């Protein structure tokens, strides 16, 4: 058992946050602190489960754990734990824990904390799933889960317009990227012949030489760029700032956007090393780096500044991976760590400032140093790390970055452009970091702040303290603190021997140092001269705006699909039917044109007896009656009743008693349903089309009918083999029942039935929701203009209906119990019970019925669905596949041999869902008119008391 747990430990680590999300959502009812403790405990538990494995990467091992998942399509649930996975898992869980603590102070009493934590944990689990995946398809599933759960997080304050707009944009962009990524992964799998990372990472040369390399690379990079907000897909990130700040701090420092970067690092050995890789990744990276830093400078919103700065830093990391040298990749990994720490703490600082002042506008927020010096000091250290000031972690990775950028492009023509662009971006970064410090904490007095700021609660600052401390410690003692982790992570990225890199503060006077100095001084000057720059920016805000292109594309898409829908669907039923039937006729006839085959097959015809002939003629007569009299709606309904009856007889005659029983029960429920609807509709269908149109439709209808009849004739006169024989042979042996139809429904195809009754339940609940609150006026008189009968519930009808109930329930129970062996089963029994109950409502009124039936229809549906699902799960518990049935035969005195199958419980679920759904729909329709009825009855009351004639 212990070994089994150890084998699946990575799965457990990934699953714990998902389970914790449910726990938190439940515990949140008890109070905010319960939710916070549960969330924190979940993170710690997941972390604790990871600990036993944490030593392996340092020992140079890669742990791969595999569980059978979908062996039929060659997919295993495979987890991989190496240095890169360890680094990311640490970031996800470590910063996640700090966010849990921070959020409990940040979110106000009005905000449901449980919901936030549940979303956060869902997201955390999805991220862990990505970084611990061995199988690419599995990675993609978690990738999509991060898109979905981040949608929930961004739209947390969903009544706000910017929240749902931002969330939708993020989901659209990252979702589209996910689709591209799926295509890329499929191509990659095709090239390598496996979706396992262990195989893919060793197959780099084969991948790069493959003709499919380019399309595959483009698709994979589309996924990466959308997720990591690389130009030109960066625009969703600033809009996602509508999320609560703890979510932003988490998504945009350590997780969501880093998923793309993670994939770059993960696939680095397999995909990098070509010109395509360098130009695409490096190109997108450098543009994103410079533009992001430039835009960040012009943001007045604190979080906007951080958002664009995040974009810029993501570009920086992408550029490092794009450069493609091993040392650049190491620098990229290092910057992942550093950016996560300082950016998370800066977002927390922005959240505290927002929390304390009620504003995020840097034009208003000034001089906070006097109000909150402690928070200010922390924020300043973090901002200095972002700017790349020495003695802080940002400086170290930025130095490495400058060095790599300098040496990477020297051999190219115009190669000096890269170091120049990089230094320029460095200047912007220093300028916007200075702005974060100076504009917020100094620069005069606050202007019109909604609240008077003071220091936040003690524990709200703890997460920031931890992160800022890390920035300092890493910055001052890099070799002792971060070196081992960086080494194992880089080894995993490079898939090679550990690379010698020198993490030191002082490397001597070299180009990188010069670039750093230029960036620091230039950034300072830039900030000092910011006023003319801002003025210039305000005058020229029009420009290349990816968001506008996105909106134009989206609107265009809506316009095209709208036009297409309007062209296809004019709202005319005649038109739709004409198109469908004409298309079927043309295609059906075309298939027969080239190859003449006789219409009648070789199968001998059955003899015809007189009774069947008369019944068939009666069916035709009733059908003709429906066509001729269809404008009188009630008459048409009565005639359809006769048609249904003869159809049931035909089913009986051709040995399909189950069908016959179902047909009869459905027939009855349909009549009641249509009667309920007819009450609100005009009694006659008006003539709306011209004579020519009607003749055209008539010809088409006759042609369609003849065609269908000819096809049926052709099929029925030919012998054919079907899968029937298999079911007939296996029904008793495999399902323990002699009624093949029922055994198929509850056993062989139990999964289908489960799906079908779920759809039925959803449809019933949908109707319930649609009709909720709808009240319609019914006609005052009957179709002949006479007033309705005053006797609402005639006594004879009520008495007879009550007599019927026990009888019908007995029949229903009988049909249900014998269903496994003889015609019957849960579906028919359910319809029978529903019909028996409906007739009580019909004879005695809804209020009467509801007083006597303690369960409402929804509960029938819920219990029924649970019963079917639990039967399926029960078979999982004893080690069989989902929905395997077990059965035994008992001998009861008097009753005789009685068969007991687990399928009976399943069938009971089907029965309950059918009862519930039918009752729910019919009673809802009946309730449409309730209130008017009451007032009519009230009027009646006055009439009886003698005031009216």
């Amino acid at each position, binding site marked *: 058992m212990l070994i089994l747990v150890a084998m699946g430990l990575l799965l457990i680590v990934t699953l714990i946050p998902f389970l914790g999300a449910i726990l938190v959502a439940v515990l949140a009812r008890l109070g905010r602190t319960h939710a916070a403790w549960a969330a924190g405990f979940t993170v710690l538990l997941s972390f604790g489960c990871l600990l036993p494995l944490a030593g392996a990467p340092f020992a140079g091992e890669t742990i791969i754990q595999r569980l059978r998942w979908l062996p039929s399509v060659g997919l295993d649930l495979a987890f991989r734990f190496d240095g890169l996975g360890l680094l990311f898992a640490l970031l996800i869980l470590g910063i996640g824990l700090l966010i849990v603590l921070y959020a409990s102070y940040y979110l106000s009493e009005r905000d449901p904390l449980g919901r936030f934590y549940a979303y956060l944990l869902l997201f955390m689990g999805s991220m862990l799933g990505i970084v611990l995946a061995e199988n690419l398809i599995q990675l993609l599933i978690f990738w999509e889960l991060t898109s979905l759960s981040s949608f929930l997080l961004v739209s947390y304050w969903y009544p706000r317009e910017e929240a749902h707009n931002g969330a939708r944009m993020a989901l659209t962009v990252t979702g589209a990227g996910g689709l591209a990524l799926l295509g890329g992964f499929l191509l990659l799998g095709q090239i390598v012949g496996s979706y396992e990372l262990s195989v893919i990472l060793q197959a780099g040369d084969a991948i790069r030489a493959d003709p499919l390399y380019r399309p595959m690379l483009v698709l994979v990079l589309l996924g990466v760029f959308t997720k990591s907000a690389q130009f030109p897909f960066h625009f969703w990130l600033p809009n996602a700032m509508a999320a609560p700040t703890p979510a932003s701090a988490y998504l945009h420092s350590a997780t969501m956007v880093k998923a793309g970067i993670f994939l770059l690092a993960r696939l680095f050995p397999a995909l990098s090393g070509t010109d395509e890789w360098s130009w695409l990744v490096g190109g997108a990276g450098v543009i994103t780096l410079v533009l992001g830093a430039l835009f960040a400078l012009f943001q007045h919103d604190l979080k906007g500044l951080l958002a664009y700065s995040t974009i810029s830093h993501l570009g920086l990391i992408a550029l490092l991976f794009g450069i493609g040298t091993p040392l650049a990749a190491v620098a990229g990994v290092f910057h992942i760590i550093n950016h996560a720490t300082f950016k998370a703490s800066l977002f927390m600082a922005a959240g505290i400032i927002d929390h304390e002042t009620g504003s995020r506008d840097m034009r208003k927020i000034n001089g906070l140093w006097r109000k909150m010096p402690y928070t200010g000091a922390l924020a300043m250290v973090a901002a200095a790390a972002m700017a790349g000031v020495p003695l802080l972690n940002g400086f170290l990775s930025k130095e490495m970055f400058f060095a790599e950028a300098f040496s990477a492009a020297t051999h190219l023509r115009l190669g000096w452009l890269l170091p120049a662009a990089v230094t320029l971006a460095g200047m912007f970064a220093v300028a916007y970091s200075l702005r974060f410090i100076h504009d917020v904490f100094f620069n005069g007095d606050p202007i019109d702040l909604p609240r008077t700021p003071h220091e936040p609660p003690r524990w709200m600052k703890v997460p920031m303290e931890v992160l800022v401390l890390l920035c300092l410690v890493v910055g001052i003692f890099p070799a002792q603190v971060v070196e081992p982790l960086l080494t194992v992570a880089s080894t995993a990225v490079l898939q090679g021997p550990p690379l010698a890199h020198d993490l030191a503060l002082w490397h001597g006077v070299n180009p990188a140092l010069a670039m750093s100095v230029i960036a620091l001084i230039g950034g300072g000057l830039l900030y000092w001269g910011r006023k003319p720059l801002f003025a210039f920016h305000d005058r020229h805000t029009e420009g290349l705006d990816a968001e506008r292109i996105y909106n134009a594309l989206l609107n265009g898409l809506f316009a095209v699909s709208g036009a297409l829908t309007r062209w296809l669907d004019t709202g005319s039923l005649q038109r739709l039917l004409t198109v469908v039937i004409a298309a079927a006729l043309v295609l059906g006839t075309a298939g027969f044109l080239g190859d003449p085959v006789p219409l009648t097959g070789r199968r001998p015809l059955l003899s015809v007896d*007189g*009774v069947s002939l*008369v*019944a068939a003629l*009666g069916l035709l*007569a*009733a059908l003709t*009656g429906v066509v001729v009299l269809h404008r009188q709606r*009630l*008459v048409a309904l*009565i*005639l359809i*009743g*006769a048609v249904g*009856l003869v159809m*049931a*007889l035909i089913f*009986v005659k051709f040995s399909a*008693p189950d069908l016959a*029983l179902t047909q*009869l029960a459905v*027939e*009855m429920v349909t*009549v*009641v349903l249509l*009667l*309920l609807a*007819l*009450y609100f509709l005009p009694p006659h269908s008006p003539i709306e089309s011209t004579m020519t149109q009607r003749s055209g439709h008539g010809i088409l209808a006759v042609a369609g009918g003849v065609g269908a009849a000819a096809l049926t004739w052709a099929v029925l006169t030919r012998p054919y083999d079907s899968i029937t024989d298999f079911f007939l042979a296996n029904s008793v042996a495999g399902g323990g029942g002699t009624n093949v139809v029922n055994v198929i429904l509850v056993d062989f195809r139990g999964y289908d039935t489960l799906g079908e009754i779920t759809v039925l339940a959803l449809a019933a609940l949908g109707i319930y929701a649609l009709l909720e609150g709808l009240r319609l006026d*019914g*006609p005052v008189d*009957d179709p002949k203009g006479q007033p*309705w*009968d005053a006797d*609402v519930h*005639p006594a004879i*009808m009520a008495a007879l209906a009550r007599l*019927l109930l026990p*009888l*019908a329930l007995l*029949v229903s129970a009988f*049909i249900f119990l014998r269903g496994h062996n*003889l*015609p*019957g089963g849960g579906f028919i029994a359910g319809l*029978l019970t529903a*019909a*028996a109950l*409906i*007739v009580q*409502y*019909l*004879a005695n009124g*809804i209020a009467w019925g509801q007083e006597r039936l303690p369960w409402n229809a929804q509960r029938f549906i819920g219990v029924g669905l649970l019963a079917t699902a639990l039967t399926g799960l029960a078979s999982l518990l004893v080690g069989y596949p989902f929905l395997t049935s077990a059965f035994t035969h008992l001998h009861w005195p008097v009753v005789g041999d009685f068969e007991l199958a687990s399928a009976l419980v399943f069938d009971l679920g089907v029965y309950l869902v059918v009862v519930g759904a039918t009752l729910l729909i*019919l*009673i809802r329709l*009946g309730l449409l*008119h*309730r209130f008017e*009825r009451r007032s009519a009855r009230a009027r009646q009351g006055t009439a009886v008391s003698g005031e009216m004639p």
Partner: protein
Amino acid sequence: MLTSVALPVAFALVTAAFVFSIWRLLVGPDLPDRILALDTLYINAIAWLVLLGIHLASTLYFEAALLIALMGFIGTVALCKFLLRGDIIE
């Protein structure tokens, strides 16, 4: 022995009743006529099924007959309630 004579006769008579019911269903003239015709059709169908069961010496058809009896009653009640009140479930 009796059944060899009685069965064909019974079949013929029920079939005739079926034909007349269909006729009444089609020509009406009024709604109650048609509802009654449908109800009679249900009874004819029950008779047919029982006769078929006797003919084939099988009870397999009786459940269908039972169900027709039940459902026919409920259908007729619903139609009548509609004629009386319009709103059948109130």
